[in-house]
């Protein structure tokens, strides 16, 4: 996989999302749960806005000093027996992991959930070099069996229900049990246990690396990340270069924000901090630890007006709050990063060419900005993307360009504006019935296909006002 998923056009993806009644029901109910959970968890803290401000300060400070903290992190990791590799591109990151797999003569790699490995397409790269790759996060495992991309960054199989999961297990793994969640989970646990025990390498992502101590922290609910990092002899952690905090003190704040904003939990079931390789006095942990720090377009965002997009802590609160996401689902975005943060981040990491429709997949209602625990002004970034698409990339539609030039003239000349308010009623009269338009011409059609449009009034406000003034002055 890479950032871009599928070959369908934006319009085709959106329509497929809208037509998928089951997925929409699942997404809508999940959004409801996550949202009320988030609001309750925020309320419990009592001073959520102060937490958000602190979160924003921490992320902003870290990005401003990213070079310093990355240097400190890599020194600390190496001091504790690990190896750090900076990968400029997805290819470099994949090649490095492939190289380790070759050196270890690895046949099986077991993974815990990681968005950055989806982004760089690590699974495919490892499979190409002859490794069997097993996802051990339940949602990711289901998707892997189904060869389906994630539709959400925290709950990747949000779009599937238990019947579909039972079918997948039956078809791909010979499962014969019921569709009870407990039975499905027990089956997955039993299957995955074998993979944990037989894997040569464990690959994880990294929620946050702690610069001062060289620790990699993982936030999970299933405990699979602990298996991945303690059973195989080699552990490789892949992190986006922005996933870093200065010290444990900041970690506490961002993890609290993450778990509360993501699913409304005070903390997840497991928060794992891994520091260095196994010491002689220790009984578990990897003999060999590699931290792969991935740039893949991130450093290009530093120092730009989009820098705060790197503040993202991948909680998906914006996705869970987004009314557009609710109706179209994650796959409609055509990116492994869906929803508002996906619409901001995807064009930055993967260019506008394939993703120029994403910044427009928003009403700019700002529910995302309001939900973000580190105050990323998501809707403002979307507007800025639109400006770049139109003015720098020249990718706006010709018809719209002409219309907007006309708009500028109309709105900057009061005479032209005045005339149009006078003419509007007459101009639209042929389409008007009972003061409404149900089948409008030109751009109005998009509107009237699904709702009526009020016909312009016979007399505009300004003309009424002028008459009133005249009457008053005359009287």
């Amino acid at each position: 996989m890479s950032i871009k998923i599928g070959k369908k056009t934006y319009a085709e993806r959106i329509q497929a999302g809208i037509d998928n009644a089951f997925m929409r029901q699942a997404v809508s109910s999940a959004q409801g749960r996550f949202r009320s959970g988030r609001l309750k968890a925020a309320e419990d803290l009592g001073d959520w806005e102060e937490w958000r401000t602190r979160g924003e300060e921490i992320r902003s400070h870290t990005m401003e000093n990213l070079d310093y903290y990355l240097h400190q992190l890599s020194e600390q990791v190496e001091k504790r027996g690990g190896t750090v590799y900076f990968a400029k591109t997805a290819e470099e990151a994949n090649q490095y992991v492939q190289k380790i797999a070759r050196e270890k003569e690895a046949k099986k790699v077991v993974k815990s959930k990681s968005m950055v490995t989806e982004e760089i397409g690590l699974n495919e790269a490892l499979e190409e070099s002859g490794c069997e790759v097993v996802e051990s996060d339940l949602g990711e495992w289901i998707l892997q069996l189904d060869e389906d991309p994630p539709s959400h960054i925290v709950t990747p199989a949000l779009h599937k229900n238990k019947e579909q999961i039972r079918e997948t297990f039956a078809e791909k793994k010979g499962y014969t049990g019921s569709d009870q969640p407990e039975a499905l989970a027990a089956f997955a646990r039993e299957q995955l246990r074998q993979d944990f025990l037989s894997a040569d390498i464990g690959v994880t992502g990294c929620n946050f690396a702690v610069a001062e101590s060289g620790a990699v922290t993982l936030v999970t609910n299933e405990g699979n990340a602990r298996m991945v990092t303690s059973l195989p002899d080699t552990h490789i952690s892949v992190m986006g270069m922005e996933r870093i905090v200065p010290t444990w003190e900041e970690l506490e704040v961002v993890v609290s924000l993450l778990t509360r904003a993501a699913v409304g939990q005070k903390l997840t079931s497991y928060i794992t901090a891994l520091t260095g390789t196994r010491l002689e006095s220790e009984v578990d942990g990897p003999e060999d630890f590699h931290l792969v720090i991935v740039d893949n377009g991130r450093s290009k965002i530093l120092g730009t007006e989009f820098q705060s997009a790197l503040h993202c802590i991948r909680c998906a609160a914006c996705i869970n709050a987004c009314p557009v996401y609710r109706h179209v689902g994650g796959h409609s975005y055509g990116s492994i990063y869906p929803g508002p943060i996906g619409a901001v981040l995807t064009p930055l990491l993967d260019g506008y060419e394939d993703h120029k429709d994403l910044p427009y997949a928003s009403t700019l209602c700002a529910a995302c900005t309001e939900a973000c625990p580190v105050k990323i002004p998501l809707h403002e970034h979307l507007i800025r993307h639109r400006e770049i698409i139109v003015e720098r990339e020249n990718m706006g539609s010709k018809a719209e360009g002409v219309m907007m030039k006309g708009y500028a003239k109309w709105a900057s000349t009061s005479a032209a504006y005045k005339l149009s308010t006078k003419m509007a009623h007459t101009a639209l009269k042929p389409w008007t019935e009972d003061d409404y338009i149900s089948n409008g011409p030109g751009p109005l059609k998009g509107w009237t296909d699904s709702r009526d449009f009020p016909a312009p009034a016979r007399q505009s406000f300004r003309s009424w006002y002028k008459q009133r003034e005249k009457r008053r002055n005359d009287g």
Partner: protein
Amino acid sequence: MRVSLFITCLCDTLTPDVGKDTVQLLERFGCEVDFPQGQTCCGQPAYNSGYVKESKQAMKQMIRAFEDSEYVVGPSGSCVHMLKEYPKVLHDEPEWKERAEALVHKTYELSQFLVDVLDVKDVGSTFQGKATYHPSCHMTRLLGVKDAPRILLENVKGLEIIDLPLKEDCCGFGGTFAVKNAAVSEQMVHEKAEHISETKAEYLIGGDMGCLMNMGGRLRRNDEDVKVLHIAQVLNSQ
């Protein structure tokens, strides 16, 4: 107190009655209302679509039109918020930025002006009926006007307000979004219309004509018998 009405292009053309009610309402509280004829559109349709250069022309026209005003009051959270963004948009033109800042400091949304500036909580209006209120996104999240409409409506005699399920959710308008992403917009406004119907309210009240036009248009298409009213119309009802 001298108040210049910022009518918004939608109310000017499509719902002049909202403007008339706004004028009368403000006059009832002793405001001397004027209407600068140079005003046009706030620039939002172009700005939000990425046509920033084009939007600046509209913005400059609006700055010129309201230059001599003491207060500027508009019956829309969204359009008023757009005005508040002018200094940011015009940041690289210092002279215009300064003029834009002067406009920002004297501009208010109608309910905000009544509650925060005129210190009115009860406008003394009477309106019989059951209604539900849609708090529009730009008014609440961007302009930060959350309580003023509620305070004013609670004090209208005879009016019963029924809570709208998932009221904070966008109605699917989003300006050009409604046309560009018509299929998604349709789903959003359909869900909103269903929630409105669930309340069994006779009236839908809101503070932004764009959203009201969207929800009203869908309700009408669904043959729902819900009347759509701008908050100014309710507050000016005797």
